[in-house]
């Protein structure tokens, strides 16, 4: 028996998982060995994960936006798969950033959650992209799904600058930008190095996850196409229509 589709190879690839593993080990080691903060103490180590997670979420949504535009322009299925994969990974990293921020906020601010502009806009961004994923899930036809989600992928991105600039536009408990800001970073160089290193690790992790998810989506699409081309038996196939005009039934039933 011949398989309907050719497997595209390992979903995660061979070299990139190794690179990500080594980079992650280096990132964790650097975060553990870095000096404690004067004010926050060891809690600062959480920020080496929280901040890169937030940055990666922004990157994810930026890629979703660009890939959505790309799909609307070229109509290539790969663009749709990239946009969807990036949004899924973005939702994961947004949830991670919120959770880690909450764990950091409890000992620092005294609460798990506060009505701060950055927190609220980030939570809204999470729900907007959950809506994006719900829209995809609700649309069975691949072309329809790609079209609807590409349009919403562009519309949804309007929220992202709002999240980034929320700490500038509103008076917030959340600290203002301390790395990407006019006048240069305000962090100690040793801490900044660890933070940037972990940002690279998270970016590599993002690439790994998006690539794997996009490959899985390509396999799913190929499977769907193969099933459409070679439809299997349907539930009603085994049932045959009753014979209404036989001689015996005419004699007995009428």
């Amino acid at each position, binding site marked *: 028996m011949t398989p309907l589709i050719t497997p595209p190879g390992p979903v995660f690839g061979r070299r990139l998982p190794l690179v990500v593993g080594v980079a992650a080990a280096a990132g964790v080691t650097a975060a553990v060995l870095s000096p404690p903060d004067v004010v926050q103490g060891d809690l600062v180590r959480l920020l080496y994960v929280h901040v890169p997670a937030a940055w990666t979420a922004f990157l994810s949504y930026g890629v979703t936006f660009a890939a959505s535009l790309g799909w*609307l322009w070229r109509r290539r299925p790969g663009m749709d798969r990239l946009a969807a994969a990036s949004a899924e990974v973005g939702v994961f990293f947004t949830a991670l950033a919120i959770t880690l921020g909450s764990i950091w906020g409890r000992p620092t601010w005294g609460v798990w959650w506060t009505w701060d502009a950055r927190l609220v806009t980030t939570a*809204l*961004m999470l*729900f*907007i992209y*959950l*809506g994006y994923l*719900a*829209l995809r899930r*609700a*649309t069975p036809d691949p072309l*329809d799904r790609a*079209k*609807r989600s*590409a*349009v*919403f992928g*562009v*519309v*949804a991105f*309007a*929220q992202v600058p*709002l999240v980034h600039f929320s700490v500038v536009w509103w008076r917030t408990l959340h600290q203002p930008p301390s790395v990407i800001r006019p006048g240069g970073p305000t962090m100690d160089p040793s801490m900044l190095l660890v933070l940037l290193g972990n940002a690279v690790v998270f970016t590599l992790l993002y690439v790994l996850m998006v690539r794997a998810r996009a490959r899985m989506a390509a396999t799913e699409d190929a499977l769907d196409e193969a099933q459409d081309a070679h439809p299997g038996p349907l539930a009603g196939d085994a049932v045959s229509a009753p014979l209404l005009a036989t001689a015996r039934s005419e004699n007995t039933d009428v």
Partner: protein
Amino acid sequence: MTTLPVAPLTQCLTLAAKDLRLERRAGEAMLVTAPFGAVALLLAPLAVGTDTPLLRQRGPALYWLVVLLFGVLVTMRASAVEGPAQLAMLRLAGVGPRVRLAGRAVANGVLLLGFQLVLAPVAVLLYDPDLTGWPWVLPVFVLVAAGLAVLGALADALAVGLAGRTTLGPLLVAPIAVPLLLGATGVVQAAGYGRSPWPWLLLVTTVDLVAALLAAWCARYLEDLA
């Protein structure tokens, strides 16, 4: 026989009038969603506490929250769905996707304005808010209705034909429409404290403009969804 081309504005207003006529027959927005919104205004104090001074202070915010959440339901009403045959007829008649979306948004805006005006006296009656600076609320009514109408029309176009349309639409609109909620409550608060509400009005106007531009841009991509 020659036929004169119909101006897009006339097409848009005709479509909006058609939507409003359908809604008048169905009565979904004004006879179902509006009473449901009034019930929400009545129930909210039972959840947060029936403390009269607190409700007097927080009543306007509760009102705008109900307008946002239930207003989305107004835009996702069943009478705002065109079947494939109706869409084909509109296409053959030369009605463009932008005009169709604009017509839907105009009808949504009129209904939302009516929805707000129906609920406003209920909120005043139940919460007895401080009405200082109330004339500022009038432009907010129009601007919030316009913004929510465009976003609702866009979400409706995105979710049209899907099984979960009426639940998916609010999920798509509500988080994006939050600046409208902030702006509306901000205007009311600023007017109440005697401060200038212009920044909040500017926020709502900006959201309206961005939503209109996005809707105008993406309308052609939503052409053949049904």
